[in-house]
């Protein structure tokens, strides 16, 4: 890193390149943070997490209908810290069953939107979260919603297989997209074109709508993109479903666009992540590559993948059982598995600004993944050393001199019969054998 900095200074390396390289390095170094913990306030599984536009506040929605906002900034003055919860859902107002999606307003952190299995979509004022600012009752389970990142006023919500468009300026559900013979499960706006909406369905089809005119839609298949007229429910309904182009073998749980809107990634329950080109002419091949990260999952998953925007090989963080796969979508390989959760992982969000990851799982915990492993380790070691030098462990003096040589080995062989008050043997061994690190 320091070498690179010099190169940048001299002018041999472009600043952007350096930035990408450093971000990529940190992201690929992700491991469970040994200094930061998210305050354990959750009582149910965490189904959705989001980071606000400023990169400071973490929003998480839990299975019991509550949401929590954590301040990710460390203002305690110590490296070892907890990400404190600064705001949480009021009781008896808001959602009555599990929150499936939480999302910050794309432009600032004054507003956020939650949607839940109880069929309500709530708008909240982040500064005054006593009750929802606005509430839309869609009657059926809302599996996913997204605010249009360009306009910021349009929310697309999937409820009971249909896609509803809500305009928060008028406060009404203005439009319902026509039926496409499939049950929609996931929606995602194109960040570049504000009128393009990608819909993933339970049958595994990817459909792109132009909401200005819903007469036709584009169906993404493995080999081609087809433009189709909007479906009419007829008698041979089932046959028409069979004719639909399939992008995945199972339900599509999550779709993420690249920042420029040129590419997007779909995450299916069939164990595949696919990378697609969005700006394609009909009948051309949209699929770039497929990564098989795991086996076909059985249940109806509610997963959210994370995408790192600025890294050089685009990275996808996909929940896979109790771990998170870091998928390199350029070479189509799983780079790493992030292990730390005790139960299934549901969602992951990548913090672009500070290169940290947050994941929520069924073990009702949000975990922090950070890439500056070395600095954290150094800090730990320093802490230990200072603790030893300050004589925190008085027992050290009592130890016979002979054991010092034994500590050349990695395992202490001090016969500690009185382990009821056994002191951290690590501190001693680390002290004498720093090569461990």
């Amino acid at each position, binding site marked *: 890193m320091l070498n690179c900095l010099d190169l940048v200074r001299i002018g041999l390396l472009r600043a952007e390149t350096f930035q990408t390289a450093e971000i990529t390095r940190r992201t690929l170094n992700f491991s*469970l*943070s*040994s*200094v930061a*913990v998210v305050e*354990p306030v959750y009582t149910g599984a965490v189904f959705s997490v989001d980071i606000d536009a400023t990169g400071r506040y973490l929003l998480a929605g839990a299975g019991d209908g509550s949401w929590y906002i954590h301040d990710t900034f460390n203002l305690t003055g110590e490296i070892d810290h907890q990400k404190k919860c600064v705001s949480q859902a009021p009781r008896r107002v808001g959602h009555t069953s599990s929150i499936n999606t939480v999302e910050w307003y794309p432009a600032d952190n004054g507003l956020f939107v939650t949607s839940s299995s109880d069929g309500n979509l709530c708008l909240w004022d982040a500064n005054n979260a006593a009750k929802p600012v606005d509430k839309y009752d869609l009657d059926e389970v809302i599996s996913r919603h997204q605010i249009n990142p360009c306009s910021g006023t349009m929310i697309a919500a999937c409820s009971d297989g249909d896609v509803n468009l809500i305009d928060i300026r008028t406060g009404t559900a203005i439009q319902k997209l026509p039926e496409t013979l499939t049950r929609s499960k996931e929606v995602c706006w194109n960040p570049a074109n504000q009128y393009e909406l990608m819909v993933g369905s339970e049958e595994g089809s990817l459909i792109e709508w132009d909401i200005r005119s819903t007469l036709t839609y584009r169906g993404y298949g493995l080999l081609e993109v087809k433009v189709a007229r909007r479906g009419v429910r007829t008698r041979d309904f089932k046959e028409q479903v069979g004719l639909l182009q399939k992008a995945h073998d199972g339900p599509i749980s999550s779709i993420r666009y690249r920042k420029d809107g040129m590419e997007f990634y779909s995450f299916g329950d069939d164990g595949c992540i696919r990378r697609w080109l969005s700006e394609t002419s009909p009948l051309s091949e949209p699929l770039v590559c497929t990564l098989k990260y795991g086996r076909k999952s059985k249940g109806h998953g509610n997963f959210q993948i994370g995408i790192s925007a600025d890294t050089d090989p685009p990275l996808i963080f996909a929940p896979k059982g*109790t771990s998170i796969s870091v998928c390199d979508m350029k070479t189509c390989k799983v780079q790493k598995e992030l*292990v*730390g*959760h*005790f*139960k299934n992982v549901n969602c992951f969000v990548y913090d672009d600004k500070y290169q940290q990851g947050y994941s929520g799982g069924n*073990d*009702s*915990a949000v*975990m922090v993944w950070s890439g500056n492993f070395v600095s954290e380790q150094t800090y*730990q070691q320093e802490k*230990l050393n200072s603790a030893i030098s300050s004589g925190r462990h008085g027992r050290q003096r009592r130890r016979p001199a002979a054991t010092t040589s034994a500590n050349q*080995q*990695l*395992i*202490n*062989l*001090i*016969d*500690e019969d009185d*382990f*009821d008050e*056994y*002191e*951290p*043997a*690590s501190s001693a*061994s*680390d002290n004498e054998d720093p090569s*461990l690190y």
Partner: protein
Amino acid sequence: MLDTKTCECITKLVEKLATSGKHQIDKIVFREFVSHAGQSEDYIKFTLERIFQHLEQKHSEIRLGAFLIIDELFKRSHYFREILLDDFHTFLELTVESNPSKLLPPPLPTAKILKQNVLQAIQKWYSTFGVDHKRLALSYNFLKNNLKVDFQDALKRNASELAQESRERQRHAKVVEKKVQGVEAELNDNQDEIMQVVTEMDNCFCLLIPKPSDFGENQVDDEEDSSSEQLNLREHGFATTGVSINVQRSSLGKVVVTEDNLPIIENLKDLNALLKNRFIPLIKKWVAITSKATNQTLFRKLMGLKARLEKQVDRFNQINVSQDDSSKKVDSSSSSNEDDSDFEDVPEKEGFEYEVVSPPVVMSPPDAQKPSTSTSSKTSTGWRLWDVQKDDVNDPTSLVATLKSLGQKTSEESATIASTSHARRLNHSKQTPAESDTEIRKRKLMKIAPKLPFDIDLYHWEDKDLKAPSVEIVETDGHKFWTPSQDRGGEVIDDPNGIASLRTRVIEFSGEFEPVKWSCRAPLPSGSLCPRKDRLKCPLHGKIIARDDIGNPTKPEDIQALNKEKEMMEKDKPPEWQDPQFLKEIEAATGMDLMIRPPKKGKQKKKTFAEMYPGLTDVDRKRNTPRSRLERKIFNKASVKRVAETLDELSAKRFNDKFGDQWNYSMGNE
């Protein structure tokens, strides 16, 4: 780089530690193990892999052993902690059931101990290393908040569980004591009554059955006589001190009911019923309660009482009460006078059976069949129409029984007919004295001639030119489903057996059971003789041979065979100095194992679980109880099939004999 030898050593030691089955780690082995494993980080990593292999075994004791190693290493090595914590969720899944769908394997008590120990250890680890290892802290919080593990409780569990147990035991003892006290009170209430009943019964017995002493015989004299006699015998060279003569009494005596003793007997019956129905069950209940008590005096007392009452009941049962004719008459008349019942006397239904007599099934083991000569003779003479057998009379389906019932019914008629026929016969014999010769001859021949039931061969006995029977195929005319493949309706097929089918007769012989009248009588270590009654071979002592009173074989060839067997046994025996105690001492002193083991014959058996891991309980072991062993034999598919086949065969033969001429039975046999 890993050294293969060290790796092997580590693998072996990990296995030894993990499968020891102890709840504490073996310090000496562990030291040796650490000397290998602690050489480098790679070895530690390798060790962890090996440990995880054991941790994944479906045996809680192995898991506990593996956990003990982990615990020791966790305390001592920073690197080990790091790599273990990377896989900590797997560790938790395998030791504390963090995944509810994956439960801990058997044996259950050890699984419980394992879980508790791990939780205690995690608590300790957390308090010492929680600051350094974020992941450990996270795991701790996960267990605490998510799985609701109460660590404080887990630490206390051991002590509190013990206290709880002792409290429970005390409570139980108290309950038992209370119950016993209740029994004692009840006994005090009832004892007088019981004793009264017993005395009354005793008196009744005295009145009914006179004792020898009642006849005025002086027993003392008797004894003196016998002793003097003994002396005399001794002078004659008879050693009669050990002789005791047992006189078997079949019953206490026959008591004839007369008008005099009727009230006594009635009284006795009542008392007996009282004992049987009330007091003995009551005492049995008390015995069951008091048997659990620590103080056994009451229990013994109750057992004595019970024995006494049972003796009385036995005594009553032994008395053979027979009705006197006079009393019976009195009885019946009085009873008929007394009860004016509403029921009318209904004549017995014809052919009604009070008891359903199941057909007697005679099982004959295959080797128990009689020699062929007797069989043939039996077949020629045994099948008589009038062959009266005991069973047959009881069996309502048999001809004999039918005839008997018919005979009873027509007894009056036949009585009259018999007299006339007798008269006629007398006349007949008088009229034809000349024919007596042929008649005598005929009678003689008839005696020898086999008698067979009427059958098809007799039907065609005198037909000289028989035609082979033929069958005409009937067309199942126009049936919806059962249309013949080819239209063969009206076609006539000859019986494949031809004329023979009309000339032959099948006689089924189901054999006869011959009870085993001999026993094995091989000498037993107790001094008695083997009482097993087997036909040919005793399962314990081999072939059954002729033996004398002491159990020694009498035939010379048997003696020879036995001697040979003995010699073979002696040959196989290790020499005398191979005393296991002595060998153990030598081994302890010198460390040498001088045991001579018998050479292994044939294929080497696969080692059993118990041999491989002597410290562990065998989870998969099938229960080897007498019941299960018998079950395996009796409910064995083959044996069930064999028994069923034999029974089927027997019943088929019997039915063929009895109802062979009936349509449904004649078809069912084949």
